[in-house]
């Protein structure tokens, strides 16, 4: 059996008096598509930050491909942050933002090869035509696709996404899952995604983590998304719906 792509061992995170994560523990096999679901304030983003190495667990440990996350080469992990955190006042073109994912720095000028690689990534998400548009003039959905292109540009082994469907319409969301699943089929990459959409979680993921700061359930969607489990997590009957 191959080593897990992501191993979270009894991870707790405390910010002062606030226990943001409490004993999260799971092992995600390579090639899996995991969605993380839970109500607002459940610690989903904190967990993702532990996987990225941006937040140090107070206790327990996170491993990505058997390494501390920050010891993984930068190209191994792709990251799609929440678009709402983006500084739109920054003077930048879409193609430059994609290039940061390949170069690990802000590009002064793109070489021909760098531009071609960035354009190819934009092509995959249907954004090549807007490559030279400034990010201030892109819609939320368009930006989300650019971020996705950015994450995929360096062909990562693990892709992490924080609510990537926010700002996308139904067609855009379907396109995003299509891009991710094709990439996964082509490369065998592992995907970890935070979502509020239980239906999408049910249809697209191989594993689901349900959490409310502590771990409520981890397993295949047909087990983890049972109504009683969702009821525990969300504090009501657990009827499936989209937020």
């Amino acid at each position, binding site marked *: 059996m191959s080593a897990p792509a992501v191993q979270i061992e009894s991870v707790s995170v405390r910010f002062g008096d606030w226990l943001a994560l409490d004993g999260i523990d799971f092992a995600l096999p390579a090639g899996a598509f995991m969605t993380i679901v839970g109500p607002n304030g459940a610690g989903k983003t904190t967990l993702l930050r532990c996987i990225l190495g941006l937040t140090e667990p107070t206790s327990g440990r996170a491993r990505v491909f058997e390494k501390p996350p920050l010891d993984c080469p930068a190209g191994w992990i792709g990251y799609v942050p929440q678009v709402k955190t983006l500084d739109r006042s920054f003077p930048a073109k879409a193609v430059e933002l994609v290039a940061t994912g390949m170069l*690990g720095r*802000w*590009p002064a000028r793109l070489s021909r090869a760098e531009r071609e690689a960035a354009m190819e990534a934009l092509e995959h998400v249907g954004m090549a035509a807007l490559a030279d548009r*400034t990010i201030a003039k892109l819609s939320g959905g368009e930006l989300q696709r650019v971020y996705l292109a950015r994450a995929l540009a360096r062909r990562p082994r693990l892709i992490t996404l924080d609510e990537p469907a926010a700002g996308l319409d139904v067609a855009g969301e379907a396109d995003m899952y299509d891009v991710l699943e094709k990439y996964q089929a082509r490369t065998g990459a592992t995907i970890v995604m935070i979502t509020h959409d239980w239906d999408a979680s049910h249809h697209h993921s191989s594993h689901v983590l349900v959490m409310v700061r502590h771990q409520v359930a981890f397993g295949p969607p047909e087990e983890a998304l049972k109504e009683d489990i969702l009821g525990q997590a969300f504090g009501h009957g657990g009827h499936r719906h989209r937020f």
Partner: protein
Amino acid sequence: MIEALSMPFMQRALIAGALVAILASYYGVFVVQRGMSFMGDGLAHAAFGGVALALLIGCEHYLVVALPFTVAVALGIHWVQQRTRISGDTAIGIFFATSMALGIIFLSLKRNYTADAFSILFGDILAIRPGDLVLAGMAVVASLGTLPLWGRWAYASFDRELARADRLRVARDDYILAVFLAVTVVIAVKIVGVVLIAALLVIPPATARLLARTFLAMTLISVGLGLVSIVIGMAAAWRFDVPPGPAIILVQSAVFFMTALAPRR
């Protein structure tokens, strides 16, 4: 102005102004894009404390004291920001007030301090000495050595967390940026004084931000505007017999407002 340029003190003033304009408008793009415009004011007031200390102990070359003092404050601000949950502007405000209070006490302990205080607060570009030029030149040369950091500073200015996720050593890079900002501010004290330094760091980059579509363009336009405003400001100061520092700042402000009022593309 051509006639004025035959005078050595004017030549020194123009060269010093150009060197400081390059430094301030270059580092200013990171200051503006990170929403840290208050940092310029904070470091300027730290420089005030440093210069006042140099005057108190009778140090002829005030930079010898003011430079380490201001660098220490810049590093202190970043240290507090990274070690505590205090926001950047609060950390700057604490160091700002402390340095200013120290500066006032240092000056008050010295007899006949009024002229010195006036010079620190409002600058005196016409009193630039050859040693000041050498220091400003060294700072520009050292800054050329940091050009490989431009892409890293720019990335962290765009999104600090994304840069960290890409394994950039953002905290270390921030300390280096803080040191160069402090050096720029201390050198600029002589030219525009403590009160107006922040303008040199903020106005050219803010104007460039209105004109640029990429961060590289913003950087180049900012440096260009900084240089041009020094030349026009000094010419205006000579022509109308007003202090050069404020004249330079007013030229920069005029360009900013004209740009802001121009029709958007």
